[in-house]
Structures are given as structure tokens and as C-alpha cells.
């Protein structure tokens, strides 16, 4: 899976945090894992910019939604593992809620006639 494919959607502004939190809700992971997981779970539809991922992780960690520590990956590489904190879990619920309301609202504006073009 190459990351230079052009047919994938770039992430909407602000959704990266939500996706990171969601991915980590399944268990601790390192940055590379998180990127792959998002891509995989979106059915290869979403493109995660690796260059933005790490600053985002740092940002979340600074807000104490994530905790991090260095560990060793299955293929014996050192990697920084991130895990969701209690505050992070709470934040995830808030973000999911907000996202669903957004989707609903945007859907309503678009109307049923445009639902299946």
C-alpha cells in the first residue's frame, strides 16, 4: 500500500484527532500502527499524512488525552506506544457525538434527493 496514491481522500480538518482517539480505544499502539489502522479501517479510503500525525499525537498527549512510553514493536523495532487515558476516553465520546451531529446536520442540508446521485 503506497501512500502516494491520489484517489484517497485527505482528512477533513479536525477529524484526525477523532480518528486517533478512536483507534487507540482498541488498545495501545505506536504512530505507524495508528496510521495503518486508520487507512485499513477506512477501507483504504482515507489518507493519513504521516507528517501531521506525530505533531497531532504530541498535541493530544499534551492535553493528557494520551499517555506514551517507549516500547518494542513485534518486529523488534523501538517505538513510542500511545494509550488512551481516562480523559482521552471522555474526549472520544464528546468528539464522536459532535461528529455524528455534524454528519446528521450536513445530511439534512443536502436533502434526500441528493442522497443517491
Amino acid at each position, binding site marked *: 500500500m*503506497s501512500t502516494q496514491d491520489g484517489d484517497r481522500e485527505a482528512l477533513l480538518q479536525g477529524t484526525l484527532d477523532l480518528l486517533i482517539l478512536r483507534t487507540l480505544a482498541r488498545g495501545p499502539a*505506536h*504512530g505507524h500502527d495508528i496510521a495503518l489502522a486508520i487507512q485499513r479501517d477506512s477501507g483504504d479510503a482515507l489518507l493519513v499524512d*504521516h507528517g501531521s500525525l*506525530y505533531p497531532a499525537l504530541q*498535541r493530544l498527549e*499534551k492535553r493528557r488525552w494520551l499517555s506514551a512510553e517507549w516500547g518494542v514493536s513485534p*518486529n523488534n*523495532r523501538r*517505538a513510542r506506544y500511545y494509550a488512551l487515558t481516562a480523559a482521552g476516553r471522555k474526549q472520544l465520546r464528546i468528539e464522536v457525538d459532535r461528529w455524528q451531529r455534524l454528519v446528521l446536520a450536513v445530511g439534512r442540508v443536502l436533502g434526500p434527493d441528493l442522497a443517491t446521485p
Partner: protein
Amino acid sequence: MSARSDDDFRDEIEAHLELEADRLAAEQGLSREEARARATRAFGNVTRARERFHEAQHWRWLEQVRQDLAFGLRSLKARPGFTLTALLTIGLGVGVNTAVFTLFYALIARPLPVTEPNRLYNIYQEFSGDYGRRVDGMTSLLALPEYREYQATARSFSGLAAYGELGLAFERARDGTAQGQLVTCNFFQVLGTAVRLGRGFGADECAAGGGAPVAVLSHRLWREAFAGDSGVLGTTIELNHAHLTVVGVAEPGFAGVGLRTADVWMPLPVQPLVDRQRDSLLESETSWLYVIGRLAPGATVAQAQREVDAVGRRLDETHPGRVTKVILQRGALFNAPEIQREGGIVGGAIGGLALLVLVVICANLMNLLLARGIARQREIAIRLALGGSRRRLVAQLITESLLLAVAGGAIGLGLAAGLPPVLLRLVDASTVQLDLSLDPAIFGVALLLSTLAALAFGLLPALHATRIPVASALKGASAISQERHRPGRLRSAVVGIQVAGSTCLVICSAVLLRSALRQATLDPGYDPTGVVSLSLNLPQLGYEAERSRALYADLEGRLTATPGVEGVARAEMLPLLSRHGEPARPLDGEERSLQADWNVISGAYLPLMKIPLVSGRLFTDAEVTGQGEQPAVLSRRMAGALWPGQEPLGRRFEANKVQYRVVGIAADVYHVSLQERPGYFGYLPASPADPRGLVFVLRMRGTWRRSPGRWSGWCTCSTRPSWSRRRHSPSAWSWRGCRCGCRAGWPRCWAGWRCCWRSSASTASWPTG
């Protein structure tokens, strides 16, 4: 969460790249190098990610400030000439202002050197309407009965103390004199200062009538006169020829709470012993006591003010026509209302001039910086072109200015710390306590002035320098951009400020110089050239009236016979040296009193001083009997005020319970001060029965400059012998001179008494005389 290091973040990205390379190699069968290269490409700009991390992680502005400081230092170092000029001028501006502040702060605002000084308040009274008052110091001081009234009523004060100042003859002190304070018993308790050695005053010693006369010495006097010997306790010392027992030594550094350094404290009942000329304790209309109180815990100033106002009203009830305004002042060395009023004007003027100096300096620097901004146009254009934001550049330029100002301010602070003591030494302030040391307030003012100065001279040039068309400036078209942006107009405005400020300063110095010249050339109405006074503290030496009469007569004969002496007269005082205020009441005419100043003189005084008579005649010593109606001479203004539009000669008035008849009218003279126009003034005849308290006034022939040599034959000065050659400031030119304590020589041989004199002299060296 502890801050994460940049390296840790780099490691994480490195780990990511390795993992991605592993994956690519495994899934797509790429070579290791190829996989790694692809991973890096996919990641995008690693450096940018690290920068974003760095910026998120750090206190960004702090780092920028650090960078700006480093840059500023570099760029200042690159132009040492400019930097040095700027530093010195700012140092001068800030220094002058801080020095002025330090002086006035020490005088009127600095907390007193005692415990909890902020709870201490002085009580002063200001009268208006119809009142008569003897003044010993300042009108706003209190009389003893008044103090007692406040003390008995004011519950807002946990204690109210009073003290009066008094000069003392004290053999063991360095110059034979000491400054004494007559105090209430609670003086040390109210001020919260301990008596270091021995004890304070006991209740019996303060009770009216008094017990054994006692004194507490200042630590300084104790060290100086007794070499710090604790055996001094219980011994007897001689102050103004009264014998007092030393019972204590005050805390080191404590010299009272007034401007004048106090050396000795005595309980109030001692007053008649050490000051035989007065009965201040009994007088209810004499201003002589400073009153200072400590607010009780929980009491507010407003409460205290209400209480003392009530006391003031009650005191007025026995004085119809008088209105007393009671003033509470936070404790400070120099806080009497009349002084603060005058000091406010003087301080405002000096402070304003100092600020003007700073303004001119700022304008000057601003101009320099504007010029530099043009020279730096290319540099700034490059920075702008490379993506530096304008705000960042302005911050950078202002940081440079701030660096200059703060460093200059430090120089100024040094100047301010060094300048006032030097100035004080110039005006001979050895008997004055002034704390001029640095303290947070002074430091704060210096910092504030520096910062304001930096903004004043740095902001506009910085804004101006960064407002340039980048493209043309980069091309080196400085001429074009200059034309378009007209920095010239701003610079002209700044030059305008500079010229205006400098002109103001020049005008002010011219005015000051003129008034100094005016004072020097002002005709005071009398001729001080060659006039010398000799004062004998006979009451303090224990001479009674009869013996002093003989001494005065004998001395007068000897002085008249002394070669070089042209004339001899007696007077209570010489002009400008002190004042004697007393109300006068006309006996024929309206029933009202007039507050006036007086001099008590012998008949020879007016001709000797060359004060002309306007009409009438002088009184002769023969017609002064000391009984019944006495002759008097009034100044023209005084006569005009007492009997407006009428012939004053032959009219009668009363002053200090003695009746006088006006025999002559003298010209108005500047007696009280050279700054004030001559006021109400009168000359009363000296009582022939008791000459104590009078000084001899001599007119010397020729130049007075050479006289001390001749005089030293019968008077040994204990001060420096060069005293007559000292030049004085204009306000002091006439009479302030040497204090010469004469201990050995003829007075002792002749009178058989140890004698201490003070003589004041005019200096003939003043060019206009």
C-alpha cells in the same frame, strides 16, 4: 507531564520511518534503500514536523525574546559609538530623574526608620481667621495643652507622642553642640524603638514638675562622646549647663523621626532647665511640638481624622474667630503641611525640569534611531522578504531599544545613588538624617523610566523602519523609498520636540540664573557687608540677668574699642537667620490683631544695618525703661496695615502684653526671606534690664575677609579657620557662616567661665555685597 525533548521526537519519527521501510520492503519487495527513500517521501517534510513539535513544546515568545536579546546585543556591539552615546545619555536622563525622586522620596515619603512605620501619623494644625500664635519652628506645630487634648481624646491612636526640638551646648560633642529633643514619656514606645542600653523614661520623670532630670543618648553620640562606654549610665552630663543623668542609650541608627538628627532625648519637664529663655510647657498658644501617633489596631485613618477634627473644633470654641484645620500626615521626615506645600512646588519644578531633560534625550535618541532605520533598510527588507513578520521585526528593534534603556538605566541608577549624597555634602547637611539608599521604590522608578524611555524613543523608529516597500528596498533603491515614505517628516517633528525641549530648559536655567542674580543684587533694605554677629548663650550658661547686664556692658565696651570694628549694636536676631512671630493689636483703632514678625533691638541697630527711617525718629536706649509704654519702630507696610490711611506716628499698639507707642517708621526690608516680599515687621526695644538672648551685631571696617586673623587673638574657632572664605549659595549669602565655638582664650580668662559662642558672619567675598 514533563516536557519532551526535541531528540525524543526525532527518535520517534526515525522509528516511524524504519517501521514504514520495513513494511514497504516486506509488502512490495523493495530494496532496503528504496523502501527507506519511499518512506521518507511519504512522510513529507520531516524538518517541518520537528519545527511544529518544537514550537508546540516551548514557550515560544520566551525563546524569541532570548533570540531578540542576543541579536540586539550583537547589533549594539557592532556600533559601539552609537551604543556608548545612547547609554550615556539615557544614563544621564534616568539618573537625574531618579536622583530627584530619591531626594524627594527620602524627604516626604520614605517610611520612617522604626517598626511598622505605615501606622504612624503626624498631627498638624492649620489656622485661619483670627488667631495669635507664638511660633517656635512652624505654625502647624502644637502647644503642650493642645497635645494633651488630642492625647486624651483620640481613641484611634494606640499612642500619641510629642517632641520639641532644641539646640544644646554639650562640651563632649565634637563641635560642642548637640541636637536635643524634649519628648513625652511614651516617645520610644509609640515609635516602637527600643532603648538599647539602660532604660527609657519613668512615669515620675515625665510627670509635671518632674523628677530628677534625665536623658537618653543616641547611639551615635554615645559612641562619639563616650567611646561606647556602658559606664556612662547613671553619670551626670552637662547640657546647656544643666545637669542631667544619663539613663539610657537608644538603638543604633535611631535619630528621631524628624529631618534633623537628634542626639539627646529628655522628658518634657526638663524644658525649663535646658531652655531658660522660655516657658514652653506653660504656653497654650505656642507652636513648638511635633505630635506623632500610632494608629490602634483596626483603626482607620478616616476614623482618626474624624476624631482629631472634633478635637480641633473643641479647641476653637475657646478661640472665637479662629478656624483650625487638623491635618493628619503619614509619618515621614519632612511632612508638615507648609513644608509639603512649598516642597510640592519646588519638587514639581525640579521634577518637571528633570523629566524635560529625559524628553529631550529621548527625542535625540529617536532621531538617531530613525537615521539608523534608513541605514538598515536593506537588512530589514531582506528579513521581511525571508518571511519575517513585521511584528517580529518591530519586537526585535524594540528589544534593542529596551536593552539600551535598561543598561542606560543601570548607569543612571548608579548616578542616582551617587549624586544626592554629593549634593547634600555641598549644602552641608551633616545634621540631617536622610536615607538615600536604594530601595524597591527607587529601583522601580528607575526601571519604569527606562522602559518608558525605551518605548518613547524606540517604538516609532521601529514601526517606521519596518514599513518599507520590500521589492524596491531590496533593489537598493533606498532613495526612492525614502522619498515615498518621507521619514524626513517624522524626523523633522522629532527635531522640533528636541528644539522645543532644549529651549524650555535654556529658558528655565536663564530664569533660575536671573533669580539667583536678582537675589545677589537685590537690595534687601539693609547692608550686610561686613556685618558680624556674636552670640552668647548666656541663659544656657546659667547667667542671671544682673550678671549678664554687666557682661554685656563690658563686652560692648571692649568690642567698640577693638580695631576694625566700626559700630556695635544689639539685636535679637539678624535678618534671614530666624524669625520671631507675634500678633500685634492696635490699641486705638479697630479691635483686631495682625500676625507680624519682630526684631528686638538696641537703638544703634537700625543705623548700623543702614535701614533708613521713612518718618519719625529712632528710640534711644535711654528712653527704654522696661516699664509702662515703650517706644517702637514699625515697617511701612506694618504701619499701613494697622492704621490704613492714617498717620501712624504716636499711635499705640500691644504685643505680647506690652504696650508700645510708634515713634518711627522704617523702610520695608527683606527680613524673613529673600524670596518673599517684605511683610509686616516691627522693631521693639531691647529691655535694658535683661540683655540675655541678644546678639552683638558688629560692623567691620574694610574687608571682612581679613578679619578672622585679627579676631583669632581673642576667639579660637573650633571649626575650620577657612570659614570666611567659603562661598555660599545665594539664599545664604548674607549671614550663614561659621559656627565658632570658643572654648579657650579670653572669655575664660576674663569671665572665669567656660564659654561657648556661636558667631555668624557675612562674607564680604560676595561680589555685589
